[in-house]
């Protein structure tokens, strides 16, 4: 894998990593969108959407509440989407490895976000006199510096994760022994379990929400059976 192959993936990871918190928080960084965009970059948008849907189920659990620490899904979904889209025939284990690589990246991504926030605090402390004086240049430059650093963080994270994990995924697929359908069922069962737990966490305090959930579940199962 050379630099020119890596560059578009890294840039996409940078843009989508930036969207998570810094700019513009339009949720283009949600796995459903980010993995699809990565798949489209490889020429396999539909594959990206498929793995994006699995990742979205897991991401429902980690919503960006306040100052809490949460995994960074933008760059991670680009890595997962690109790895899955590399295998358009979806061989056994392809989705498993793509989701696994995305989860590993999202873990590291969350850590890099904490480090960036600490770095932003150091920069703000270094410019304390300018902030206290209401210096326009200081305030604007701190904001632009933070966003630039976030973009660079996302791009570097994506490049490193993709460069390291794509070969690991290829090697694992070469040695994969479990049936394709069973492998995919394991991914889906895991992702949907997280989504189910997340839904309970989010909605259990809302009056009547459980009845809405069960009504929806009946409708969903019915639609699944008749499709």
């Amino acid at each position: 894998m050379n630099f020119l192959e890596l560059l578009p993936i890294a840039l996409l990871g940078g843009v989508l990593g930036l969207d998570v918190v810094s700019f513009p928080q339009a949720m283009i960084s949600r796995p459903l969108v980010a993995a699809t965009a990565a798949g489209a970059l490889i020429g396999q948008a539909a594959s990206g959407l498929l793995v994006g849907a699995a990742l979205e189920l897991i991401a429902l659990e980690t919503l960006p509440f306040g100052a809490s620490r949460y995994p960074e899904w933008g760059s991670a979904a680009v890595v997962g989407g690109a790895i899955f889209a590399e295998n358009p025939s979806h061989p056994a284990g392809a989705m498993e490895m793509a989701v696994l690589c995305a989860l590993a990246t999202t873990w590291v991504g969350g850590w890099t976000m904490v480090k960036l926030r600490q770095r932003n605090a150091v920069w703000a402390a270094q410019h304390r006199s300018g902030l206290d004086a209401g210096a326009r240049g200081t305030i604007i430059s701190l904001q632009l510096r933070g966003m630039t650093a976030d973009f660079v963080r996302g791009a570097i994270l994506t490049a490193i994760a993709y460069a390291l994990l794509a070969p690991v995924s290829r090697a694992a697929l070469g040695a994969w022994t479990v049936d394709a359908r069973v492998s995919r069922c394991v991914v889906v069962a895991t992702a949907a379990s997280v989504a189910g737990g997340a839904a309970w966490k989010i909605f259990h305090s809302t009056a009547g929400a459980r009845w809405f959930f069960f009504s929806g579940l009946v409708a969903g199962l019915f639609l699944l059976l008749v499709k």
Partner: protein
Amino acid sequence: MSAQPAPATTPVSRTAALPLRTRLAILFRLLAIQGSWNYEILLGNGIGFCMEPALRLLPGGLHTPAFHEALARESRYFNAHPYLASVAVGALARAELDGEPADRIERFRTALCGPLGSVGDRLVWAGWLPFCSLASLALFGLGMGTGWVVGFFLVAYNIGHLGLRIWGLNTGWRHGLKVATALGNPVLRRGPQQIGRVAALATGVAIPLALGRIIGPGRNLIGIVLICIALGSLLIVRVQGKIEGWRLSLLVLAAFALFSVIR
């Protein structure tokens, strides 16, 4: 040579609307309000960054002590939901341009943090975002194409997102220091409950449909998968607070991948 006051430095009267150019500049900057978010002053620098175009309208403009004092005041510690911070930006801009006393502005600023954080979290992060996400997953499960699924999510979510930011700025500017009354808006008070119910419905519809499409043709394993999901969800609810679900799924998938490769 006598200095001519620039048009941008003309003070805005109590009843005037914020000039369109200034309003657009603030709205664009609001999208980057968390650009330098940090653990010391949180959104503080972002609030100053967003208000700067409005503060240029203070008498005398950019190079006056009043401008620098106001910018310094507005760039201190602040915490709120990033979308609803637009309410604070509008209200504080109004207060600064109306020449309210500094200590009153600072007290008001402190009082705004809590409500704008909790209302925004419940309305957006625990309501609108999961709803849009789950509704898109339901469309995906129903077999919609890539463009429809992604397009629906982005359009639906951002109608709420951008609408909230624009409403917040306008409301804050219109009410100034009396903006607390506007926070009693029915959408903010009852919206989280209503959206929560619809999102719970969408969860029920989306999960079986999405898993059906991801598994693909030949669904003879689907009954077992559904039982596993019910048990898995219960486990995740039980271990809540000890380990997060995404970390647990990382462990499960890593163990399964190892088993698949080395057996």
